[in-house]
């Protein structure tokens, strides 16, 4: 990362091809939104899956749309690994970049804020306002750092449940999310089956493959090998920026595909006409990854990255709820599912979605599944895609009819 930072060739798709989408024409927006904070567990700490206790717990969250009188139109959106609560809209009139799923959430959009009340919160262990390793440990007054307890997808979902409770919402109309957000969706549907009418897990899995764990481990090692990491205690001495940037580069590769990289970069050179014969960023793909890595460092915390990747690696729905059987795990569920995978997603390949669909079918659950042809790899769920939009809006509309939410409802 010592090379001078060169921005990639200006191209919409370049910046769009990221877990954190920006600069996409997103249509009508929900307008101004505000990040709020909800704190619980001051008196009674949250008992974590690890056995450790965490409290008080704060969740940063945002809402769009209006909760109806009988509180039946709420949709919880779960963000992916390094996302945040800023799902749609803007914080101020001059903010150039709207929320990460502005293409999907807004007035007249598939997750229609004219009809639905959308909640999105930052996961615990994150660094975007919710309690995580950057938060002050109430016992010491210092940031938790590596003393923060390891949290799981189940812990994240239990914290979200406290937030949902605080609105007086009994049953969520739907829980929606992609990637690690999709794991939270699956966890919700199995942990709290009576509090979810519908679940939409996108581009996700019921457990990480060895390959997915391997990539996460390389990313974690990049952080921990950076001397500045200092066993997680770096908030006064300077952050392990190199390690975090490399971790992001590794992760970023897994979000793309051979085809999308060939199409966008191929072997084109960056700002030069011939090879440099040194270790500058010769190729556009190198420059792009360096740019993404460095951009990520500005907004993300290295310890948080360790905790969140660990939570994703630990997620194992069949072991946790079915003693190794996914069919047994889904026997707890009762909601309707829409499962979506993408052809070029090699991080969570279609066979993993098909496995969960199979287990749902064996339990007689109402499930729809579509594998969308898309060349962009795992990131596809965040990119504009008419098929995905149509699936979500049609499916949610059906759920509304089923739950008798709509025309007669005074929102």
């Amino acid at each position, binding site marked *: 990362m010592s090379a001078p930072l060169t921005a990639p060739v200006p191209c919409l798709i370049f910046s769009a091809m990221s877990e954190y989408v920006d600069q996409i024409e997103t249509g009508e927006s929900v307008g101004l939104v505000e990040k709020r904070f909800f704190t619980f567990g001051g008196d009674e700490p949250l008992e974590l899956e690890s056995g450790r206790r965490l409290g008080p717990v704060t969740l940063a969250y945002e809402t769009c749309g209006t909760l109806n009188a009988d509180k039946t139109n709420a949709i919880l959106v779960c963000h992916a690994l390094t996302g945040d609560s800023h799902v749609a809209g803007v914080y101020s009139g001059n903010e150039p970049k709207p929320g990460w799923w502005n293409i999907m959430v807004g007035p007249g959009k598939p997750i229609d804020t004219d009809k639905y009340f959308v909640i999105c919160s930052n996961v615990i262990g994150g660094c975007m306002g919710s309690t995580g390793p950057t938060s002050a440990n109430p016992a010491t007054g210092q940031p938790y750092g590596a003393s923060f307890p390891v949290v799981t997808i189940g812990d994240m979902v239990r914290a979200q449940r406290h937030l949902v409770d605080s609105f007086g919402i009994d049953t969520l109309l739907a829980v929606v999310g992609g990637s690690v957000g999709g794991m939270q969706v699956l966890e919700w549907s199995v942990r709290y089956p009576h509090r979810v009418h519908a679940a939409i897990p996108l581009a996700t899995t019921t457990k990480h493959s060895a390959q997915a764990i391997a990539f996460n481990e390389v990313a974690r090692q990049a952080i921990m090998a950076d001397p500045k990491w200092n066993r997680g205690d770096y908030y006064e001495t300077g952050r392990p920026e190199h390690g975090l940037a490399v971790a992001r580069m590794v992760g970023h590769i897994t979000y793309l595909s051979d085809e999308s990289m060939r199409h966008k970069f191929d072997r084109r050179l960056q700002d030069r006409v011939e090879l440099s014969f040194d270790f500058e960023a010769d190729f556009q793909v190198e420059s792009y990854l360096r740019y993404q890595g460095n951009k990520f460092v500005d907004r993300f915390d290295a310890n948080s990255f360790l905790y969140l990747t660990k939570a994703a690696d630990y997620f194992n729905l069949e072991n946790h709820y079915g003693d190794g059987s996914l069919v047994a795990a889904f026997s707890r569920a009762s909601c309707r599912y*829409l499962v979506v995978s993408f052809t070029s997603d090699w991080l969570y390949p279609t066979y993993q979605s098909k496995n969960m*669909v199979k287990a749902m*079918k064996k339990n*007689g659950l109402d499930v729809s599944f*579509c594998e969308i042809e898309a060349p962009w790899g795992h990131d596809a769920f965040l990119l504009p895609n008419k098929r995905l939009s*149509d699936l979500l809006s*049609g499916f949610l509309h059906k759920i509304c009819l089923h739950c008798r939410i709509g025309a007669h409802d005074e929102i």
Partner: protein
Amino acid sequence: MRYDLQVIASWIEPGSRVLDLGCRTGSLLAHLAERKSIIGTGIEIDEDAAGRAIAKGLSVIHGDIYEEIEDYPDNAFDYVILSQALMQVLDPETLIREMLRVGKLGIVSFPNFTHYKNRFQMFFTGRAPMSKELPYEWYNTPNIRVIPIIDFRRFCKHLGVPIVKELALSTHHHDEQGKVINFLPNLFATFGVFMLGQAR
């Protein structure tokens, strides 16, 4: 809706559980859900068709009917429908047995290959017949099987599968109207529709 689908729909009891194999964009399932309050599921291999069906609010699995049907428990459905897809099925025996495992009743419709026009065409031109129902050349047809109504009956007998009901129809497959053929159906019907029961 296609006339053979109208006939199939008329056979379905209200409120029943229905699996439609090769449901395309789900017009039969949508019709049955609206008119007969059925609980329906479709399986469709084409992404575009499956996507449109899900976008209509139907429960549809995008996938291959052989693979997808395996996952359902025995007697999960009251009816399993295979409309105008049998001609494209590689292993009809396995599929029909699977249909009657997951469903109490199976309904199959297919174009009758030995309709008199096909026979005349073959006899007088000496070429493989092309019809409105089977509008392909030998080299581009997705229809790998040719099925006369009487051969299908023999096939059911061979499987030990009882034929609960059958109707022979004369219609164009895009036509929404048609009529029932009682006289020499193997000669005069363009379509056969069969309801099959579980083998005893």
